[in-house]
């Protein structure tokens, strides 16, 4: 099911939660980018615990970019790509925190 069709029915926050449940790496990457506001791809791989596999992280970044929660400034070397949080990402993090604390 595509993002738009699901989003229309259940709302952004639940859609994100479902994505994170389906792929926990999405939550890990979003959390790190949101916490640091901007981070190099190479640093992101090292900051996650346990260290994240490159391909898994790339997949999560692709999904997060598709959801417009983060953006990426690409460089000649992938490790130096800069990932940074967007307005939608900040809003999503706040919603996730609010809905999490309410449970």
């Amino acid at each position: 099911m595509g993002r738009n069709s699901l989003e229309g029915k259940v709302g952004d926050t639940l859609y994100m939660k479902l994505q994170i449940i389906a792929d926990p790496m999405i939550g890990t990457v979003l959390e790190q980018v949101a916490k640091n506001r901007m981070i190099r791809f190479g640093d992101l791989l090292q900051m996650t615990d346990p260290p994240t596999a490159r391909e898994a992280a790339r997949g999560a970044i692709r999904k997060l970019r598709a959801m417009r929660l983060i953006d990426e400034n690409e460089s000649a070397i992938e490790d130096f790509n800069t990932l940074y949080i967007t307005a939608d990402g900040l809003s999503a993090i706040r919603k996730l925190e609010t809905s999490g604390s309410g449970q």
Partner: protein
Amino acid sequence: MARDLVIAIALAAALSLLISVIEVRHQSKVRSVAVSCRSIGFLLYFLVLLVGNVFTTWAAATIVSPYLGESQARGVNDDNSHKPRAEAPKNSEGATVLRSAGLSGFLYAFLGVFAFEAVLKRVNVTFVDQGVLTISDWINKARDDAVAGAIASQVDAQVKREQALALKLVQAGGISDADLNTYVQNWLGPARVQELEQAAEASHANPRLAKAIALATGAYDRAATLVRP
């Protein structure tokens, strides 16, 4: 009253600007004020705070001024000034001091900004799960845009700074190919030279510039020492 109100509103505007700058800098973790405040998002966030703070300051002045016993206490509704003011409280010593020192404006601004920050900003009235007066949501959205704008500006500024350094490294008087390779190898990793040359060749790019950009991106501070006079 009119003069005090002008002072109060000017102060509220200044405090709005100060609060927006502090909030956006803190939330975005962008150190430079110039970078963090040059987005449209910041302007909108500032305007939201400005409108809220000016409104509450005006309200505070209207409510509090009779208690200070100002001669033009009803300045905001002067048409009623001919009416007796039996209901106005007596002047206290503190009120007299405030008034004589011309500090009423400061008091109104302080109360207004405090009222907005502490009370009105947290208002979220919903009716049948639909937001009716969601001031808190509006401000959060405006702040998110401002913070994201500051972060994007910072990334943009960083890229420009790195590109400028890379150009200095490869321009005439910069470092030689052999030196460039050595620095890339030492600072970015042993396999980086080959990796960058292959990537540049695949896209018909300038390998020397690609290596300089990588050096500026991956080790900016150290690379900057290579071009300093």
